[in-house]
């Protein structure tokens, strides 16, 4: 069973999904992300799906649920890099990913997140290096 790595960068969590995930891998990613948001007090999550050539209703639901859970945990999520053929298919499938912010690529996604993080009040981190 694979696990998708999550990188922490300041107040951001970064994920790049590079493999065709089975359902359990997708659920693990959702669980890992919510846990890491709390652990690092992350303000924003960027999920790069530019390598995914298929997003079916299960993966789509995982992305939407992750964004919803992150919001409850006071973090914003942006999904970046969706291939046009995937977007066309998702809409025809009936999944509009309402409530999920998206950006064309990682650069634009990062800009979006920086805006969010700058608006967030400063607070001490629990990285352990300031004690």
């Amino acid at each position, binding site marked *: 069973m694979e696990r998708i790595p999550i990188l922490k960068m300041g107040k951001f969590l970064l994920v790049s999904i590079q493999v*065709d*995930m*089975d*359902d*359990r891998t997708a659920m693990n990613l959702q669980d890992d992300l919510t846990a890491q948001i709390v652990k690092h007090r992350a303000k924003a999550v960027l999920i790069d799906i530019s390598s995914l*050539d*298929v*997003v*079916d*209703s*299960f993966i789509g*639901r995982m992305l939407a649920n992750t964004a919803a859970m992150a919001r409850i945990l006071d973090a914003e999520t942006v999904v970046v890099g969706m*291939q*046009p*053929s*995937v977007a*066309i*298919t998702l809409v*025809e*499938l*009936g*999944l509009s990913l309402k409530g999920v912010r998206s950006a064309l690529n990682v650069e634009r996604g990062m800009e979006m997140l920086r805006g969010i993080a700058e608006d967030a009040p400063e607070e001490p981190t629990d990285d352990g290096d300031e004690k």
Partner: protein
Amino acid sequence: MTATKSETVPVRGSAEVVSVRHLVRRWAVELGFTLVEQTKIVTAASELARNMVDYGLGGTMTIEALDNGTRKGLRLIFEDRGPGIPDINQALRDGFTSGNGMGLGLGGAKRLSNEFEIRSAPGEGTRVAITRWRGAS
């Protein structure tokens, strides 16, 4: 209409749903489907394969390359011996789910296909066949 080539694979778990996606992608590329056509049939296959795993106790997918003289296509047949679907019209409606899915599987797969056939009887299982033609919208 003749099938120029066919293959049947078991679909019992979530790893095999991924294998189905890869197999359908490979055949769609071989037939010269555009990227959007490939993505639509692969996504439909993923929905139907997962339905079999989640609700039909697993089953098989048969993939056929079609050539009717003027156009080429792919037909996918999903067969399981699960509990069957009591009300097919209800199951095809978006948002209807008997499990924890979003209820987009059957209706979504139908929209992503050019032809769609479903047969199911309670206690006898379900058979869903979809076809996509190259160059069809």
